C-alpha cells in the first residue's frame, strides 16, 4: 500500500523551494508556523505510536493535550519550575494513557470508545486542574521553558524553534532506540499481529497499555510546550487535535516516505511542520479562522482516500497503456 514514490521528486523539490521563498517573503509568519509545527510534532509522534505502531485510533489525545497544558499552567502559576511542570505534564499524559489502556484491555471496551470515555472524563479533570477554563501564561509575568532564551534577545518564536529541534532530535533518537529493543519490538509486533505475539509468550494487553502510555505521555508533553508557546492553556485547545495529528502523519508519510522506522519518525515531524505552514498560508490567503476545522477535516478525508485513488489511477493507466490485453 505505502509507496515511497507517490510524489515525484520534482514536486517535492518545488514544494521545498516554495517553502524557502515563503520564508523569505513572510519570515515572521513562517518562523511562527514552523516552530508551532515542531511543538505539535511531539504530539504527532504520539499519534504515530498509537495509529501506526499499535494500529489503534486513540482519541484520548484530544483530552491529554489539554491535560498536559493544564498541569503545566497550574504548576507554573503556582510557582513551580517550568521544566518540572513540563515533566509533570508528560507524567500526567502517561496516566491518561494508562486509563485508556486499562479500559481497552482489561475491561474489553473497544479502543475508540475507551479513548472517548477518557477524553470526556478529562474535560472535567482538566477544569479541576486549572480551576478555570483558561489560564494565561504571560511572559515576563510567569516563567516558561523559553525564559532562559530571553537574554539572547531572539526574534519571536525562535526560542520555540530551538527547543523544538533539540527535543525532537532527542525524542527521535529515544523512540528509535526503544522500538529497536526487545520490549519495543514486542510492542510493534502487537500492533502487527497480536495472535503471533501471544503465541510467542508476550502479554499483548501489557504492550498495548505501554504503547498508549508512551503515546499520551508525548501528547501531554506537547500540550505543556504548546501552552507555554502560545502563552495560555485553554480547555478547548484539544479540539480537533486527533485530526491535526492524522493530517500531519499522512502529509509526512506521503511527502517524505516510510522506507524505514527512522525515516518514518522523521517524516511525521516534517509532516507536522508542513501542516502548520499550509494552515498559515491558507489563513494568510484569507480563510476565516472559524472555517479552519472544516478545511482540515476535508483535507484529511482527501489524504486518507489518496492511496485508494492512487491505486485506481494506476490500474486505469495500466489498462490504457495495454489496450490489447483488454
Amino acid at each position, binding site marked *: 500500500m505505502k509507496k515511497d514514490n507517490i510524489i515525484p521528486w520534482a514536486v517535492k523539490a518545488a514544494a521545498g523551494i516554495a517553502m524557502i521563498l515563503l520564508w523569505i517573503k513572510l519570515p515572521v509568519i513562517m518562523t511562527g508556523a514552523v516552530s508551532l509545527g515542531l511543538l505539535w510534532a511531539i504530539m504527532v509522534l504520539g499519534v504515530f505510536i498509537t495509529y501506526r505502531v499499535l494500529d489503534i485510533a486513540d482519541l484520548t489525545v484530544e483530552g491529554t493535550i489539554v491535560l498536559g497544558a493544564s498541569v503545566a499552567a497550574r504548576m507554573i502559576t503556582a510557582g513551580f519550575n517550568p521544566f518540572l511542570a513540563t515533566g509533570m505534564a508528560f507524567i500526567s499524559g502517561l496516566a491518561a494513557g494508562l486509563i485508556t489502556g486499562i479500559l481497552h484491555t482489561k475491561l474489553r471496551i473497544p479502543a475508540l470508545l475507551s479513548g472517548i470515555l477518557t477524553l470526556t472524563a478529562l474535560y472535567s479533570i482538566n477544569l479541576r486542574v486549572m480551576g478555570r477554563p483558561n489560564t494565561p501564561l504571560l511572559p515576563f509575568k510567569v516563567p516558561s521553558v523559553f525564559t532562559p532564551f530571553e537574554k539572547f534577545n531572539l526574534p519571536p518564536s525562535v526560542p520555540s524553534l530551538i527547543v523544538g529541534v533539540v527535543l525532537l532530535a532527542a525524542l527521535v533518537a529515544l523512540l528509535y532506540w*526503544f522500538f*529497536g*529493543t*526487545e*520490549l*519495543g*519490538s*514486542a510492542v*510493534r*509486533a502487537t*500492533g*502487527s*499481529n497480536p*495472535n*503471533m*505475539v*501471544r*503465541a*510467542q*509468550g*508476550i*502479554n*499483548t494487553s501489557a504492550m498495548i497499555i505501554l504503547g498508549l502510555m508512551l503515546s499520551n505521555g508525548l501528547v501531554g508533553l506537547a500540550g505543556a510546550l504548546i501552552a507555554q508557546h502560545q502563552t495560555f492553556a485553554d480547555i478547548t485547545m484539544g479540539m480537533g487535535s486527533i485530526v491535526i495529528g492524522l493530517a500531519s502523519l499522512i502529509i509526512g508519510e506521503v511527502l517524505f516516505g516510510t522506507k524505514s522506522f527512522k525515516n518514518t519518525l522523521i517524516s511525521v515531524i516534517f509532516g507536522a511542520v508542513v501542516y502548520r505552514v499550509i494552515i498559515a498560508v491558507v489563513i494568510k490567503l484569507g480563510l476565516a479562522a472559524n472555517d479552519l476545522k472544516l478545511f482540515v477535516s476535508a483535507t484529511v478525508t482527501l489524504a486518507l482516500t489518496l492511496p485508494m485513488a492512487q491505486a485506481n489511477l494506476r490500474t486505469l493507466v495500466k489498462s490504457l497503456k495495454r489496450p490489447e490485453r483488454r
Partner: protein
Amino acid sequence: MLRVENIFKTFNAGTVNEKTALNGVSLHLKEGEFVSVIGGNGAGKSTLLSAVAGVYGVDSGSISIDGRDVTRLPEYKRAQFIGRVFQDPMMGTAAGMGIEENLAIARRRGERRGLRWGVSNAEREEYREKLAAFDLGLENRLTGKVGLLSGGQRQALTLIMATLKRPKLLLLDEHTAALDPKTAARVLDLSEQIVKSNNLTTMMVTHNMRDAIAHGDRLVMLYDGKIIIDISGEEKKNLTTKDLLDLFEKASGSGEADGNLLLG
C-alpha cells in the same frame, strides 16, 4: 509430557447455538511422541489444540505440560512451553516486521523482554545459517518484510520460529491446509524433519487422512468431541486409509464415512 484429563468445552452454552466441542477428551503424550489428530469438520480437533494452547479455558478437566498444571494459565504464559503453527499462514508472523525481527521475537519465547537490542549480530548469523539449512532462499533477505513472502514461505518461517527455542510441545493446527499441494508437501516434510531432529513432542491436527497416516507415530481420531480411535506402534505403521475408514465406521456406529474426512 502432555496430560489432557477429561476436558469439556461447550460454546454458546444456554443458547440455540450451543455446541459441545469437547466432550470428555483425555490424551496423554509421552516425551518425543508425534501424534496426528484427525477428524471431520466440527469434530473438535482444532478446539482441542486451542484448549491445549490456552486460547480459551476449558469448562472442566485439566491440562498439564511436563508435570505442571497449566489449566488456568493464560495463553501468553503457556507459550513458554509451546510452539505453534496456525492454519492461516498470516497468523504466525508479524507482516509489518522483518524476517530477522520475527525470528528474534520467537527466539525469546516465554522470556522476559527488556531493553537490550532486539536483534543481536550474533543471532543474525545464526538465523542466516538456519534459514540456509532449510533452503528457502530467505537467508539473504533477513531484513525484508515478512508481508512480502509467499504463504508457503511464511508457514515455513512460522515453523522455524515455533522451534527456534525448543518447545516442550509443538502444536501444528492444519498448518498445510491453506497451501497448494506442492507447497503443502514441502512444509510437511520440513515439519517432519524438524520434529525428528529435535525429538519434539508434537500434536498435528489435519483433516487429511493420508497425511495423518504418513506422519507421526500415533494417530488419534476425534468424532463429536470424543476420541474414538487411538492407534500407535506397529498398528499405526501398517495402517491404510481403508483400515482407518473401517475403524471409523465401527467406532462411530455410522455407516457414512464422514464426507468431511478427506482422502486427500
